[in-house]
């Protein structure tokens, strides 16, 4: 902020001028001005002028360029260097436009020709000069500050114009890429000399432009000047200028290779440790079990009790090992989620059956509330079962009397799932910590399965991987309600996410990938003519055909009302085309089922990586575009 300054009532002016009569003339001219008034001191040569400037502060300098000891622009430069923060107005006998412009460019506030100014004009010129200089000094100060802040940032900061031209390249960018600012600036980002995954960045810029808000870019690969392949993590931030559209983008980030390596080491370590634990665990468990089972001879009651406790501890250690492995894979993003269309209501019915006996044994009522119409969403069934199992298990464990209720509610955009119990509840101050690792607040006392402190942390990871939210509501003494929401993703989004994942994998492994998109080309037309259930039946049939012709588990099909998309990793485009041809042929020959008389037209497109492009956005566009070869 620029502070509002109050103007002084008297301005001290230094006049540097070698005509002896001029100071008095000037005093006369300015005498009429009283608000503010002017106190004029004079120096008759450059040297004495500079001496005065060194001793006293002045509000402004009026300067003649032709002095006995200095001429022209040199005079100005000498004074300016001596008093860089004092406004200088040139007052000279020479009416020279070139000289005037030169002086202004070098920092003079104004250029006046003697004899052409009256008191009023001169007074306002001086006052404006003082104001202008004050703003100029402040602006320079802020700019210097800004520059210093920007250049001392230890992150990479790159400015890019909407056309893709580099406008800023900070010292960290120079250091990281080994390319000096002078070489990178004013070049297009594709030509700036960094060998990085440019299509990834360009795609993100498109997305950023469309959304108008920051986009995160993780794991952007680049080659350092020493040839080493490394990783960058970026935020792409749109900067809005005067208008609403982004006038510039900032790439803000860092080389995250070291962090990634540590993460990798950590999860490899946990994974190795938990694998290595399993064999000794198996030996101990089996040894104790054999003694308990009497294989090694008769045992008495007390021995049996002791060994049973040991066996329970081994089972707990096993659960810990499993849990650690789960959490490390979730944190490292190493779990591949298989999101299929699943009916949450049906899934809850299965959970209910699985827990019924356990509830009954404890004297608890197990209830479930499921909407009448099926709620289908794209989710990984095994992972959702894992979440429900964990929450229901917790509820049963910490409830001594009353009920446990599993509920599913259709909330339109999302599905809300909850497990409510009438158990001991959790203290308010502990609620925020329940999802942290190794936090246990309600250790069950007595016999039974002991917890690992990882269950809720795993649930949170799994829910978040589905882009949902999870939280607990609880009242000490009256019960707990664990809630999680799952968004109803559109098939297109699921397909895009999956394709993105597989494209990255293929690029990493250097293998091909193909996408098949089947589509009812005239969907709108037939949708009016054919009964909707018949159209859905036709899509079911097509989906069956497609799935029957997919050979491997990694092949995946996603559908909506009019389209089926299939991602075929490690498949050449020509092979994918022949699969598509076969599917449509079978559909025509054997399972026509009236689709011809209904006028349903099915077309397919095939997109191959890398031949049809390597950039995600391009392949995505090609796969989602309508039209294709007709069946």
């Amino acid at each position: 902020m620029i502070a509002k300054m109050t103007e002084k009532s008297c301005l001290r002016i230094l006049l540097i001028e070698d005509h002896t009569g001029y100071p008095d003339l000037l005093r006369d001219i300015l005498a009429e001005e009283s608000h503010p008034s002017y106190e004029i001191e004079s120096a008759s040569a450059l040297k004495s002028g500079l001496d005065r400037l060194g001793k006293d502060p002045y509000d402004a300098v009026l300067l003649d360029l032709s002095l006995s000891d200095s001429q022209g622009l040199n005079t100005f430069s000498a004074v300016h260097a001596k008093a860089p923060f004092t406004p200088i107005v040139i007052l000279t006998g020479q009416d020279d436009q070139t000289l005037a412009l030169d002086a202004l460019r070098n920092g003079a506030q104004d250029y006046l020709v003697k004899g052409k100014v009256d008191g009023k004009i001169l007074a306002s010129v001086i006052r404006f000069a003082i104001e202008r200089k004050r703003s100029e000094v402040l602006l320079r100060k802020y700019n210097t500050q800004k520059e210093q802040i920007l250049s001392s940032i230890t992150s990479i900061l790159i400015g890019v114009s909407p056309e893709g031209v580099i406008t800023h390249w900070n010292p960290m960018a120079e250091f990281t890429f080994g390319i000096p600012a002078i070489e990178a600036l004013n070049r297009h980002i594709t030509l700036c000399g960094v060998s990085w995954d440019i299509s990834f960045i360009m795609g993100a810029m498109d997305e950023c432009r469309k959304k108008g808000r920051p986009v995160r870019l993780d794991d952007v690969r680049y080659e350092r000047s020493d040839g080493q392949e490394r990783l960058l993590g970026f935020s792409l931030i749109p900067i809005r200028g005067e208008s609403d559209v982004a006038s510039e983008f900032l790439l803000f980030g860092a080389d995250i290779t070291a962090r990634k390596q540590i993460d990798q080491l950590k999860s490899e370590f946990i994974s190795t440790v938990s694998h290595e634990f399993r064999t000794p665990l198996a030996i101990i468990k089996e040894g104790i079990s054999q003694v308990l089972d009497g294989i090694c001879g008769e045992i008495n009651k007390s021995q049996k009790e002791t060994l049973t406790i040991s066996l329970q501890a081994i089972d707990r250690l096993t659960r810990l090992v499993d849990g650690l492995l789960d959490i490390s894979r979730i944190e490292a993003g190493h779990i591949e989620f298989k999101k299929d269309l699943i009916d949450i209501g049906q899934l809850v019915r299965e959970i209910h059956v699985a827990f019924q006996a356990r509830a009954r044994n404890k004297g608890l009522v197990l209830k479930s509330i499921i909407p009448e119409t099926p709620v289908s969403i794209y989710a990984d069934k095994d992972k959702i079962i894992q979440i429900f199992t964990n929450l229901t298990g917790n509820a049963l464990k910490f409830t001594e009397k009353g009920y446990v209720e599993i509920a599913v509610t259709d909330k339109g955009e999302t599905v809300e799932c909850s497990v409510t119990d009438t158990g001991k509840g959790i203290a308010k101050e502990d609620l925020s910590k329940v999802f942290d690792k190794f936090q246990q607040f309600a250790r069950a006392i007595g016999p039974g399965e002991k917890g690992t402190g990882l269950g809720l942390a795993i649930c949170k990871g799994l829910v978040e991987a589905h882009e949902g939210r999870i939280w607990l509501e609880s009242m000490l003494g009256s019960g707990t309600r664990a809630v999680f929401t799952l968004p109803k993703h559109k098939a297109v989004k699921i397909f895009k996410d999956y394709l993105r994942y597989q494209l990255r994998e293929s690029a990493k492994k250097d293998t091909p990938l193909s996408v098949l998109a089947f589509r009812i080309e005239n969907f709108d037309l037939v949708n009016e003519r054919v009964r909707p259930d018949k159209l859905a039946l036709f899509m079911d049939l097509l989906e069956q055909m497609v799935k029957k012709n997919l050979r491997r588990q990694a092949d995946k099909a996603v559908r909506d009302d009019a389209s089926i998309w299939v991602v075929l990793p490690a498949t050449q485009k020509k092979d994918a085309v022949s699969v598509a041809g076969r599917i449509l042929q079978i559909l025509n020959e054997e399972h026509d089922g009236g689709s011809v008389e209904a006028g349903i037209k099915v077309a397919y497109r095939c997109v191959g990586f890398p031949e049809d492009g390597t950039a995600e956005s391009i392949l995505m566009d090609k796969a989602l575009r309508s039209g294709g070869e007709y069946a």
Partner: protein
Amino acid sequence: MPRKKILIVDDEPDLVHMISNRLKASGYEVLSALDGQAGLELAKTTRPDLIILDLMLPRMDGYKVCSYIKKDSRYSKIPILLFSAKAQEEDIKMGEEAGADAYIVKPFEAQALLDKIKTLLAE
């Protein structure tokens, strides 16, 4: 009825000892090998009724042993129960692709192991 013959291939002698104890107690005849190569040879010469096969083995890993046996029509009918410390989906998938009939994850419930063996031998 002759006793059914089970081959255990695992590089952990203690574990082999434990499992053979258990299997013998349940009335099976037990053979064992401590690496993949030896396991494969023993499978060919003794033709067991079932093989319990670990995945991480010296000299030849479990996947390889499994696919050798399953590709050879003389032995391909011998059921293979994969035995692994790896519980990850990809590993299980790889095992299926190598032709394994079932798998069990370490540490295991003895009853579950015996049930699986029984089912595989009955088929």
